[in-house]
């Protein structure tokens, strides 16, 4: 059963709204007038350069240390997508903002040797995302990062842009794989486990039994 909320009945004075607007303006105006003499700004304005406003977007603000950033996909130094479409982030994501389309039967090995699986599509709905960082924590491939984390190759400008994650409609705020990869930048992976595995496997390829049978068949 839906609950019907009783609205407070407003008097005529309150319904005019003009007094309320005026009250708001009063606060702004008092700040504006007290800007020079205010004790709050005295400190910041020591060198007389401080402004209360920014010329955004040319001018960007300093990001406070508690800021985490938005999740992006990263590529390795060979410009290959690190994600292997294991869908753990999709599973762990509390607001279900991540949507991965698995590669299907064929896989997608065009990027990297040894990885049989790559996402066909990877979408994050930035309007749904709560920037909790679970996806980064759960990722077994180090393929998704919140932009604040200082992984090697991370771009500070990129991060500051996140502070104003904007779009003009809902569709624009659903970031697809290409957009996420572009924003994520490069992660300098020192281990490169799949490449290492492939190299190891190739080094072992000359085991005797298999070679013999190959020759026989030929």
């Amino acid at each position: 059963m839906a609950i019907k909320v009783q609205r407070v009945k407003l008097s005529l004075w309150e319904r005019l709204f003009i007094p309320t607007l005026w009250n708001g303006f009063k606060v702004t105006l008092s700040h504006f007038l007290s800007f020079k003499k205010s004790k709050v700004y005295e400190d910041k304005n020591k060198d007389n350069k401080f402004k209360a406003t920014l010329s955004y977007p040319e001018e960007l603000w300093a990001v406070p240390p508690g800021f985490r950033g938005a999740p992006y996909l990263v590529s390795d130094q060979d410009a290959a997508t690190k994600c292997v479409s294991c869908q753990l982030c999709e599973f762990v994501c509390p607001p279900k903002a991540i949507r991965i389309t698995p590669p299907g039967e064929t896989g997608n090995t065009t990027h990297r040797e040894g990885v049989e699986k790559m996402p066909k599509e990877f979408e994050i709905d930035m309007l749904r995302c709560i920037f909790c960082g679970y996806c980064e924590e759960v990722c077994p491939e180090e393929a998704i990062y919140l932009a604040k984390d200082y992984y090697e190759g991370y771009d500070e400008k990129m991060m500051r842009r996140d502070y104003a994650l904007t779009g003009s409609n809902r569709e624009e705020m659903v970031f697809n794989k290409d957009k996420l990869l572009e924003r994520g930048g490069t992660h300098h992976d020192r281990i490169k486990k799949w490449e290492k595995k492939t190299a190891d496997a190739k080094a072992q390829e000359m085991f005797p039994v298999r070679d013999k049978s190959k020759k026989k068949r030929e």
Partner: protein
Amino acid sequence: MPNEAKIEEPPAIETIPVKVDGREITVPKLTPDWQGKLVPTTVLQACKHAGIEIPHYCYHPKLPVAGNCRMCLVHVGMPGRPGPDGKPPMNEDGSLKIDPMVLPYERGTPKGVIGCATNLIPGMEIYATSPETKEMREAVLESLLINHPLDCTICDQAGECKLQEYSVEHGQAESQFAEQKVHKPKAVDLGPRIMLDAERCVLCTRCIRFSTDIAGDDALGIVNRGSYNSIATFPGAPFDNNYTLNTADICPVGALTSKDFRFQMRVWFLKETNSLCTGCATGCNTVIGSRENKMYRQEPRENDAVNGPWMCDSGRLDYKWIGSEKRLSKLNGATDWTTILTEITTNLEKAAITSVAIIASARQTNEELFLLKKLADKFEAITDSVPRNGEGDHLLVNADKNPNSNGARLIGIAGETLGANLPAIAEGIENGTIRSLIVFGEDVTQHGISESLLEKLDLLIVSDIFANATTARAHYLLPGCAYAEKRGTFTNVKGQVQKFMKALDAPGNARAEWEFLHEIVENVTGQNGFSTTEGLFNQMAGEVDAFRGKGLNWAALGDDGVTVEI
């Protein structure tokens, strides 16, 4: 209670006393093996009776015992060897002396036995959860994981993998193995439906035993004995019989995977729904895996009365049509269900007795056929269904390709031979005695009722899920549901009445056949019916002779179904 004593007890089963984890239990001396033959009960089975699961890879209750994975090692205590007097060593109080087994050359080290292939001995003590047993398990698991590639992120088995499960339960989180891992072939094409990853394989040989002993196709074997041993087919002979996908099911790890399901979806996202295969009259029990209204796979569900734990590949892969774009999703004849059902009722009410014929499908559920039968009784209509025959095989595939032929027979829609009445219906339309035809789920133009005959009808009501020549001529077209989109029951070739559940939503305006049939029947016959599947089934169970004797009801069907006489 005195009355209960009179009930005849089943013949006493010979039991054997054993101690599991210090608890004394009695278990049957003999247990059916994979062929149903009675063989001595094993340690693993005794532990199951005691409610303790022994981890295992190679053991499968429906396959011959191989005993090669060593995962089911348990520490046991045995009575000692008989002395010179022919009597085993006794305790001072006269009871049998049980000694924990130790290595003969190293008395301090406990010795394990494999639970799957060790028969019980009276008085035996099984230390199923002792520290010694745990240590054995950890060691075996560590050895199995030595060369495992640990690529769970790209492995389809992840989420239903015994290696993962046992690693959590019995594994050590860290590997002591610092050497280079052995690399084996990956993504090996074994056959048209199966892909092998030899690195993940634990060489349990379940797939080999299944192919040889169950499917009767000796296609798989182990080659390159030694460090590089792997499962393989004969050169030039692909692994291609109609039961190959069962090997992917029984593979405890991600070595054998289904090409159809490979990389489609992680298993933990799949919603599991109990269902039935509709490919033939066997009615194999299945589990549908679906996510967000899309079906991803179909797996066999164990039911010893029908399919055991297996099913055929052709039936398993016969689901792609359910999500097809070509499905009928719009009404034809009116725009909404209320109008179309009212119009149908009005038109049917005008129809004269015996001027109506009904051609149902043996792919429909018992409930739908029952409702059609009610409609037929009202008009004394001539009814029939369409036969669909193919080839059967030695294991599960039946020659009758209709899932519910027996349902149609028992409910009275069709006679012993399906399709026997079709010529009579065609003749009736030809000479004008049949003016109205109701067709469900069949293209009658393929079965002797030509398009020109359909043109002669005053009223043609058709329900189907795909467009065909009959639906094109329908005055009223009612889009129906695939089996995965509704609930209902089928009666299989042996008379097993089984139920299936709804996994997906029907496309567009399509509705489950029993829902709108129920409304039509209620309007036309004036009898009240049940508007739930359960109620409808229970009503049918009370009214159809074959079902009544069994005292059937929806709840009593359970997951496995009930056999009725056919």
